[in-house]
């Protein structure tokens, strides 16, 4: 019998990104109404079409009900008690990084995301988002040489309004769901990426989201457009300070891949998860969806979810183009009283479309970890193929692991396979490793790492190392 306490110690690890940056911020008053939306739009000097988009979304949101089908137990959110816009105060226009408040740079430095010229991560362009605004984007000139546009969405609204108007809300319409509607109404910042025809993005793009303020929500919006025969790898990371209150994070991510384009979107989510009693933590309600519009286009989602008190997230692919490919690789680790309800939707519409789903869930403590997925093969998707694999690992007898895959097929000339398993850490393997002189904690960590290997292999280099480290940190406890 595995010593329960030992295992529990192994999964205990203090949250090291929980510090608060003491910086003067500009906040608007709490609450949500048309005036607030107009104010946000005005602050961001947005064109009229965007304000109309926001107001329309707000009207829809008012008519919608908060979804309860995920059976996540959380305190009702008071949407009028949230600040919808919060930005660090800084000079009007920033022409170079030198003008960014050093405190902000320090914050990102502390998070391991250096933004200053000397320390820039090699070959990764970073867009750093602090509460409601993007504060810096690195390597912009180098990217511009290749015609790649990488900037905050507020800048894109000003400089590339045509692209925003054409694509915003085409993958995740404002009426899609409750949280997407809320985001469409109040979204503040996020990243915008445009890869022109035939360009392979010369470096990985990355955005880093930081919530600093305890009473404001973060509603970022990301839009990535990959033109014909282009390709890009995009990384996303998130952290937040420790507060006793719950902070709402409702993001929307839209990806569009045209003919032969490929987008790889990787996330390491490490929002503050709340303490052992479940006090505080981020409510993470995210809508992520990619549209494979073109022939042979490919969208690949990979995610490592370790933070947040509540995660509600289903990165999906709409496979419209012939022979388009959708992939989803996920590791979700929950501990204490965390709840994660995550999975994917693969909607096969075009012929010969393919999708792969690999999901690994690890639940420890009193947490609840669910995989919820949909694979749908439409009538025109002849010769389509799906393979799904969902494995869960339970650590301790208080945690729960659920699997809810939903498969719908309307096309006989297609093949769907799904398999799922649930197990605990194998005592035999543990015993074997220990008998070879490997310490208990390291053995558990090795086994978890092995369990997640299929997913880690899909992560870009920089992230694979970070993800491995993150899981090891969460699992190694006293050793780490």
């Amino acid at each position, binding site marked *: 019998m595995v010593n329960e306490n030992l295992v529990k110690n192994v999964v205990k690890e203090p949250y090291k990104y929980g510090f608060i940056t003491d910086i003067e911020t500009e906040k608007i008053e709490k609450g949500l109404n048309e005036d607030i939306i107009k104010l946000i739009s005005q602050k961001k000097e947005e064109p009229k079409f965007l304000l109309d988009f926001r107001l329309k979304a707000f009207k829809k949101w008012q008519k919608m009900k908060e979804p309860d089908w995920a059976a996540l137990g959380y305190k009702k959110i008071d949407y009028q008690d949230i600040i919808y816009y919060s930005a660090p105060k800084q000079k009007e226009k920033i022409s170079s990084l030198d003008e960014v408040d050093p405190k902000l740079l320090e914050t990102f430095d502390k998070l391991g995301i250096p933004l200053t010229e000397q320390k820039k991560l090699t070959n990764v362009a970073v867009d750093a988002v602090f509460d409601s605004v993007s504060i810096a984007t690195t390597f912009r000139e180098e990217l511009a040489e290749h015609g790649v546009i990488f900037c905050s969405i507020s800048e894109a609204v000003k400089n590339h309004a045509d692209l925003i108007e054409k694509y915003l809300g085409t993958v995740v319409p404002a009426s899609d769901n409750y949280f997407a509607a809320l985001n469409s109404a109040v979204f503040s910042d996020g990243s915008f990426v445009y890869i022109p025809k035939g360009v392979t993005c010369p470096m990985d793009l990355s955005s880093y989201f930081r919530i600093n303020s305890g009473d404001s929500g973060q509603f970022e919006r990301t839009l990535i457009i990959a033109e014909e025969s282009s390709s890009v790898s995009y990384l996303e990371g998130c952290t937040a300070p420790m507060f006793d209150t719950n902070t709402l994070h409702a993001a929307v991510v839209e990806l569009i891949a045209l003919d032969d384009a490929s987008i790889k979107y990787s996330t390491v989510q490490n929002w503050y998860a709340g303490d052992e009693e479940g006090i505080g933590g981020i409510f993470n309600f995210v809508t992520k969806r990619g549209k494979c519009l073109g022939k042979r286009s490919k969208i690949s989602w990979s995610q490592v979810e370790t933070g947040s008190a509540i995660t509600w997230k289903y990165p999906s692919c709409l496979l419209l183009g012939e022979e388009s490919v959708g992939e989803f690789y996920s590791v979700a680790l929950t501990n204490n009283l965390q709840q994660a309800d995550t999975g994917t939707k693969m909607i096969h519409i075009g012929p010969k479309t393919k999708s792969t789903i690999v999901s690994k869930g690890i639940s420890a403590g009193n947490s609840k970890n669910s995989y919820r997925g949909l694979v749908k*093969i439409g*009538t025109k998707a002849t010769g389509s193929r799906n393979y799904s694999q969902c494995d*869960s690992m*339970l*650590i*301790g*007898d*208080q*945690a*729960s*692991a*659920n*699997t*809810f*895959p*939903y*498969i*719908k*097929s*309307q*096309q*006989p*000339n*297609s*093949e*769907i*396979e*799904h*398999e*799922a*398993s*649930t*197990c*605990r850490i194998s005592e035999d393997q543990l015993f074997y490793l220990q008998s070879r002189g490997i310490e208990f904690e390291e053995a558990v960590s090795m086994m978890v790492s092995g369990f997640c290997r299929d997913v880690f292999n899909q992560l870009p280099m920089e992230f694979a190392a970070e993800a491995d480290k993150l899981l090891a940190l969460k699992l190694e406890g006293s050793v780490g």
Partner: protein
Amino acid sequence: MEIIEKIKTNKIDENLTEIQKICLHKLQSSPLPNPKSELWRLSNKSKFSNFLDYSVNEKDSKFDIPYPKNSKSTIRLIIGENCETKLIERNYSIQQLSEDELQKYIKEQIYFFKENENWSDLLNLSLSCKNNILGLKINGSKIPPIEIFSHASSNSLNAKTLVIFLEKNCDVELLQVNLGKENSSLSQSTFFCLKENSSVNHGVVSYGENRSNLLNSLNVIQQKNSEYNLGSLHFKFNYARFEISIMQSEGNAKTNIKGMQITKKDEQISTYTKIEFNGPNGFLDQINKSLADDESHAIFEGSIIVPKIAQRTDASQLSRNLLLSKLAQIDTKPQLEIIADDVKCKHGATISQLNEEELFYMRTRGITLTEASKLQLSSYFQEIISFIPISKDKWDLLDKLLNEN
């Protein structure tokens, strides 16, 4: 929806049994299942209302049993006809449950009913009159095979209820046949209670005719060390729902389920299973197969619930589906809900058509395409049919299925 109107408006008749009154009372507060709930969401609304369109018939017409009795020893019972059963032999006894026993047991069950999940049972129990409830207590050893028939007459809705107590250390083979006549609706609810160390091979064959409907609900409670094997087959129904709920009340029990549903034309047949482990060392092996052709729709939803108490549970669930036509649809949703950590649980699901490589191979050996498809189908069916007791050699279900294909 004549019945629902009646339920909604009518005052509860004094002549009804106590159980009927309780169920009617429950139904009055929510006369129809919630169409948005997962269990009823995919149900075809017009077909479902067609089920309820017939008026209730308490007496049925005579019907022809579809195959000859295979041996003299087989015990054959027809719900609604042989309600007075008392067979006491040297080794075994099959007796009717007393009114009190029946009432007590059903009332206990109703107590745990949830409005949406057990809507079919509530409807059944509120409509099925005393004559249409068969309650049996089976005891002893070397019990001959038992066949129980239940049928609906044309142009009417019949509600039949079967309650079986399998006493300790008892071992039996039981085949339940539900027959739907042309334009009929049958509501069949079965309550099975397996006491310690008992074992049953239970077969459920539901065979409809032109435009017949079926709501078939099966509730099983397994005490420790019991073994429940279920082989089921549903076909030729305009609309059929098969709801299985199995509870291993103290764990340490074995459950094997092999089910199949075949849909053609515009039929819709669905299977919903819920298996709960309420104790340690439970075992489950479940396979559900569907075949959907023409414009039909086959649905499978299975949930396995393993609470903290159910350590060392070993459960597997597999949903295999064949989709043979462009206009047919298959929905499948296997589910696992697990809290216990020392468990082995897995599920799988596949949807495909007949294996082309195998077909090609057989054709290169001179077998025609039709023959080759038949061969493939027969192996697909055989796994399930061979698991259905009694019928396997006498009532040739396989031939019946293949000829209709």
